[in-house]
């Protein structure tokens, strides 16, 4: 174990597995899956079999019960499939739609939803955002009316990752008054009558990802699908966001590092004015600066992981990591495309794909503005 490194021999073995899987099982299909805006569902099964989905979940629900550093390894390496969309779908399955189910679910709920999800047999989605509200989660309008032993759900959700292929949705609904005190989380089987998926949303990037607009019309689900307590959903969602933001931060600096390596490689080979582009000091310094910032983002994120791992309050650190790494990745994408010149604008070079994909990271899982809001509040403003 290198000095200052949180990674053991087991982490490094796992790193190799994830890297090989990303480069040999996923990357070769990139062109097709991005073009078709879809990939075979069996990817979830394969990911599950290798233990990618249950890393930090307890063994009782089919996980490996390991520390968050294994999660870090997974996120750092899966970016090598060079499809942020597919990678995000896997993270929704493992880090976004299901941790709250593990934290709050009853045994029956875990057996019906969580265990099959971690086996890759049921695909999960998280449904919070609506056509009328995103950042302002407390304002969501999808209503769940209590009727006897059931809830009857009406409303719509949008931009939902895995939405079109999910077997169940961890769904945020309004069960009480307006505002954050009237929100609940329910487990929603997509086989429910009255549920419909709108046409696939055409996106700037993350093309392999399945992103959908969802409609709920008089959808009846039993009350036993309520997660935790009624009207405490807002708190649950905010807590659940922490893991999601952490994987977003890791994906940001890790993918930025990969883009930087590509740019260095390209400028090492590309000649202009009788020299390699990399021989111009401008680019050497640019890359040195970006590498420094990527390292800073990594270390800030590692600090957040250390706290997260120890179960300590770390909302501020996670928000900072996502803000810093997410914004940085935009700059890295811009500069690395610039370093490629015209080639970088061509689909043939991965930087063009990265430039599109990475744009999401300052928007999804809470925008950069919202991260600043959180940090500002914690500064007492």
């Amino acid at each position, binding site marked *: 174990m290198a000095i200052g490194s949180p990674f053991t021999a087991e982490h490094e073995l*796992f790193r190799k*597995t994830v890297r090989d899987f990303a480069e040999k099982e996923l990357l070769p299909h990139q062109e097709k899956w991005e073009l078709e805006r879809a990939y075979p569902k069996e990817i979830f099964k394969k990911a599950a079999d290798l*233990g990618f989905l249950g890393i930090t979940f307890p063994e009782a629900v089919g996980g490996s019960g390991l520390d968050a550093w294994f999660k870090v390894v997974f996120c750092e390496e899966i970016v090598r499939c060079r499809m942020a969309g597919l990678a995000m779908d896997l993270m929704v399955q493992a880090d976004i739609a299901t941790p709250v189910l593990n934290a709050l679910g009853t045994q029956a709920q875990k057996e019906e939803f969580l265990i099959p999800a971690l086996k890759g047999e049921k695909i999960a989605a998280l449904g919070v955002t609506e056509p009328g509200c995103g950042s302002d989660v407390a304002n969501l309008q999808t209503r769940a009316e209590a009727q006897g032993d059931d809830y009857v759900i009406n409303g719509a959700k949008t931009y939902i990752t895995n939405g079109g292929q999910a077997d169940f949705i961890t769904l945020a609904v309004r069960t009480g008054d307006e505002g954050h005190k009237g929100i609940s989380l329910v487990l929603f089987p997509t086989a429910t009558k009255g549920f419909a998926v709108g046409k696939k949303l055409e996106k700037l990037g993350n093309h392999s990802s399945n992103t959908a607009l969802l409609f709920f019309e008089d959808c009846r689900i039993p009350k036993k699908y309520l997660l935790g307590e009624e009207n405490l959903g807002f708190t649950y969602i905010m807590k659940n966001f922490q893991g999601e933001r952490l994987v977003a931060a890791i994906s940001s600096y890790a993918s930025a590092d990969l883009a930087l390596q590509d740019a260095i490689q390209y400028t090492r080979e590309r000649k202009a004015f009788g020299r390699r582009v990399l021989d111009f000091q401008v680019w050497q310094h640019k890359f040195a600066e970006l590498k420094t910032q990527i390292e800073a983002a990594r270390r800030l994120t590692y600090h957040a992981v250390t706290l997260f791992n120890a179960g300590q309050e770390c909302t501020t650190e996670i928000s900072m990591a996502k803000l810093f790494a997410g914004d940085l990745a935009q700059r890295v994408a811009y500069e690395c495309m610039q370093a490629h010149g015209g080639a970088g604008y061509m689909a043939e070079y991965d930087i063009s794909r990265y430039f599109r994909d990475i744009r999401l990271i300052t928007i999804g899982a809470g925008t950069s503005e919202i991260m600043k809001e959180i940090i500002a509040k914690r500064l007492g403003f």
Partner: protein
Amino acid sequence: MKIGVLVKQVPDTETKIKVLDDGSGIDENGVKFIVSPYDEFAIEEALKTKEANAGSEVTVASLGPSRCVESIRTALAMGCDKAIHIDDEGSGPDSYVTAKALAKVIGDQGFDVVFCGKQAIDDDMGQVPQLVAEFLAWPQVMILENLEISEGKAKATRRVSGGAKEVYELTLPAIFGCDKGLNTPRYASLPGIMKAKSKPVETLKISDLKGDANNKLEYSNFRMPPEKAPGKVLSGEVGDQVKELVRLLREEAKVL
């Protein structure tokens, strides 16, 4: 069945190799080591053989310095049951001494079948398995392309040049040198990696195993191969280019 698999740790194919200033070997500083790629096919074949024969056990053996325990862990994480590390005690054994020590271990273990890569990708000698077979008086089939085992017998197909195949029928115990195309090595799953932590690794010393064998090969000096000269692109009329090409091949490259 008692199944053995031989694994060698080698520098990663992507590592830039540097020779030590005094030419005594390669500089291991900063070199990443991996399981020799052909050995991965051997591990997979061993695991498949185990799965097809209930009650079997796979033992992985690796000879080398203490760092090769990392490679042993990889094999255990893929699913091998236990391991033997033969410490080379810094002795730098050649193929002959290596094979002597391995043959001793294999004999002592009483394996029914042993798998290894057809060659290691570091020095590409490709002779350890054959030597082991010789010392044990076992049959061996190298460059294995297909294998069927049943009731103590094996039918092994090996690739020979020109696309032809040779098929051997033999009685176990035997040793097989695995090649690409034989199977698709599995990935070490996360649960597999964690299970490997508690699997037993026995350490033996080469000096206790090799008997009176000594290196037959002496390494005197390592150096990098000469830089390849840049290629030549011919121009002009096709007919002239052909003439020029033939002239160059005859006079400069001297291959015609």
